[in-house]
């Protein structure tokens, strides 16, 4: 119960919140019915509700509205003056897969070798990672743990097929309790045509002529196509008999849902040329593509819209890729894509910076993205893109109760999360940073400071 006590301490620490039934929190068995009342409710499935109520039962939302009756026996949290939103969703992280990025022993993001479709992120997510509590305190309730997703932990070397991304709640005693969906996408790093590269063997920069770089690139794409063809034949064989009839290959087996178009492929590509090639490739291969990164997605926005390809955007807090790009190139891109009808979501592509997700979205608003779109791009859109919007992303009856109660706009820098629910459970806002803060806040004045 330490964690619940911490929740309370946090609440009393940061602000005086209106009447809360504290006793109910301290009970060892969480109540099965909770009612959040008198708040402004942003369901993201309709207009905001002034003075609204949300009722949670057995982990799910059972009622949302202005004139909802509070069930008898429900624990009531009076959220007057506060706002209720679906928890935020960060669709590209290495959550639980990496603790301290400079320490290899704590990093499980990237398997060796070019083809690892059979590895699954959820397998290596550490439920005890300190990143989980820190990230949760910023209002993020669910994330995708994405293998081989680059970001700050990639160390530069990436395979072609990185493995399967898992959708997880940021709470749970075990990974099984945390898992929303074990496999939501197959990660593919699109090969890059590079004339300069960093060679780890000699620790130096290697140059190669463009023609050679192009050849290398085409070789990789062709091999990827061959590999997917093999997977397709394998999937056909799977459909024509039991495992006894063919020699099992776990890697090809893992790819079967992707080549059948059942599992989306999450393709990491940034340059417009690479994106265009990837789109064409997926078209030919009949893969369901989601784009990740997309620094130059604006250059191919019409193509992306016409193919119905969604984009998980690299942090807006990134410098433009080219020296002569407009200084706000990445800040204004979300607005440009949304206006063109491309569905976007924001991702941190990281762990320790995951709590900047709201900031990223707000910055995009500052440069023209409509606010509602920004809010959806960190909640319901990623849920839709990865096929779990039946469970999370909006505050609607029947969905899992992943909910945040805040004292303001959840995208703004100064807003505080007052309560957080994951699967209907009031979840601690305690975290490593808060603990260290409280500890040293209470350090007695140093007697002989030098």
């Amino acid at each position, binding site marked *: 119960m330490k964690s619940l006590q911490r929740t309370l301490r946090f609440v009393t620490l940061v602000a005086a919140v209106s009447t809360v039934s504290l006793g109910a929190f301290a009970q060892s068995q969480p109540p099965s019915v909770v009612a959040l009342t008198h708040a402004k409710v942003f369901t993201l499935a309709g207009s905001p509700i002034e003075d609204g109520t949300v009722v949670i039962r057995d982990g799910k939302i059972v009622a949302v509205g202005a004139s909802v009756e509070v069930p008898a026996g429900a624990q009531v949290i009076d959220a007057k003056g506060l706002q209720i939103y679906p928890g935020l969703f960060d669709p590209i992280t290495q959550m639980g897969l990496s603790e301290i990025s400079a320490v290899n022993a704590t990093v499980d993001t990237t398997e060796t070798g070019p083809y690892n479709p059979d590895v699954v992120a959820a397998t290596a997510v550490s439920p005890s990672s300190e990143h989980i509590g820190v990230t949760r305190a910023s209002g993020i309730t669910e994330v995708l743990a994405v293998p081989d997703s680059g970001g700050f932990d990639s160390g530069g070397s990436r395979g072609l097929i990185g493995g399967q991304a898992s959708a997880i709640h940021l709470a749970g005693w075990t990974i099984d309790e945390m898992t929303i969906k074990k496999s939501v996408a197959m990660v593919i790093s699109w090969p890059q045509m590079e004339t300069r590269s960093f060679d780890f063997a000699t620790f130096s920069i290697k140059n190669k002529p463009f023609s050679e770089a192009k050849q290398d690139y085409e070789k990789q794409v062709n091999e990827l196509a061959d590999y997917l063809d093999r997977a397709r034949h394998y999937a056909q064989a799977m459909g024509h008999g039991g495992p006894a009839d063919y020699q099992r290959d776990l890697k090809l087996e893992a790819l079967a849902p992707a080549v059948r178009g059942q599992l989306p492929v999450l393709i990491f590509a940034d340059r417009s040329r690479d994106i265009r090639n990837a789109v064409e490739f997926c078209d030919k291969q009949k893969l369901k593509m989601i784009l990740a990164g997309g620094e130059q997605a604006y250059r191919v926005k019409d193509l992306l819209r016409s193919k119905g390809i969604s984009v998980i955007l690299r942090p807006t807090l990134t410098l433009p890729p080219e020296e002569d790009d*407009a200084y706000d190139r990445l800040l204004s891109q979300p607005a440009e894509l949304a206006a063109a009808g491309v569905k976007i979501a924001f991702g941190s592509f990281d762990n320790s910076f995951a709590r900047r997700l709201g900031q990223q979205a707000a910055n995009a608003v500052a440069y023209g993205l409509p606010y509602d779109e920004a809010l959806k791009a960190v909640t319901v859109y990623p849920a839709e893109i990865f096929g779990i919007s039946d469970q999370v992303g909006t505050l609607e009856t029947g969905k899992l109760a992943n909910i945040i109660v805040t004292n303001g706009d959840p995208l*703004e820098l100064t807003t*505080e999360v007052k309560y957080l629910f994951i699967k209907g459970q009031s979840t601690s806002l305690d975290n490593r940073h808060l603990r*260290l803060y409280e500890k*040293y806040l209470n350090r007695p004045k140093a007697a002989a400071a030098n």
Partner: protein
Amino acid sequence: MRIPSTLTQNRSLAAIVLGTCGLAFSFSARAAASPDAPPVILIQNATILTVSHGTIEHGSVLIKDGKIVEIGASIKAPKDAQVVDAAGQFVIPGIIDCHSHIAVDGSVNEGSVSVSSIVNIADVLNPDDIDIYRDLAGGVTVANVLHGSANSIGGQTVVIKLRWGQPAAKLPFEGAVPGIKFALGENPKRSNFSLPGATPRYPTTRMGVEETIRTAFVEARDYKKTWDDYDKRVAAGDKNAIPPRRDLRLDPLVEVLEGKRYVHAHCYREDEILMLLRVAKEFGFKVRTLQHVLEGYKVADEIAAAGTGASTFSDWWAYKVEAYDAIPYNAALMTRRGVIVSINSDDAEEATHLNQEAAKTMKYGGLTHDEALKLVTINPAIQLGIDKRVGSIDVGKDADLVIYNHDPLSAYAVVQKTLIDGRVYFDRQRDIADRGAREMEKKALMEKEKRAGEKKPDATIEIGKRPGAKPEEKKSEEKPKPPQADAVSGGAL
């Protein structure tokens, strides 16, 4: 063949192309970064966050000859004044970034030795670095440009104003005390870097870092004594005195001992922070700023007692072991214990939103709006010893100002104009208006390159494109990024 990728910056090349193609448009966007300053500017109807004396609603600031000459509720526009109507907008003092690596030509680390005080960042300023403009567009007007952290005692450092479009000689902040970079912990002991087969460089422990610094200052003290003795003999009329041999490595350390050069020390852990404060006390100098100082909150009283400033990140953590106890409450906790604190970038991108990073301290640790704003204005000015010139909106100070469309401590605020010395060096509307012309200019150059390429079919063309492995992105010392070219010469990651 590779042509310069920053087309608009290379004015001689641009001029050649313009001459060839006969295009008549003016590419004022960036060339306009060095206009003649209008003698008088009046910014009016703005919310003025002075930092030193509160907020003035619907206020005006009058600028003459690059200085602030009047601040008030309503100032009548003098004749010939250029009037900037900033209705609904916010004016703050220019943002001061106390830890930057922009405008450096090449690597920021002379990593071959553990005491690299012989080198000076001021010698390698690159006024064409596009990051100057990008940071300017984020409201930064002054940057403390530091050497890297590969050495216990690193290179000499320089404070610059982001006068985009001016030559390198015009960048340094006139009269600012020069600095020197120190570094403690994982970087100088090379924990996270190793060349295959290379012999480790001393030191490889925090114990060794202390001894490296102590040894250098023992040498510097002896060296100083030889000069002092010589000076005494000369003063006494000794015509036969022979001057000691100059030691370019020790000269900057003597300046530290004499208080003529500021020490900016990269550090993380509480133990190494106290170690450096002890060593400084032993040799009788002050550490001007502790940089990063992510565990500063653990020893805030000791830092305050030493009169040392702390310049930290807003919310970076866990990128290495010594950053695992980093907390976003660091700035607020140290402030509450009496330390002068600033929030810095260490990274060209992070610098573009230091206002937002400062705002986070209101959430993490409960600083007031005013206190938060100080973290990127007057506090770094004090730390760099330039607070008489910049850091607040006061009569007599340099007209280094930023105009935002919203409260700058919000994620929704966008810089509209940045002024340095009363000149508009960044103007968002002008930047947007000039994009078409820049695009045309780029196209013209690419056409030319294409034609040249057709003559030589094997030519490799890399226009406006950074190399794939991003080896040029060396500007962040600490922000975790994939290994970079900088790592070769002893970079930070």
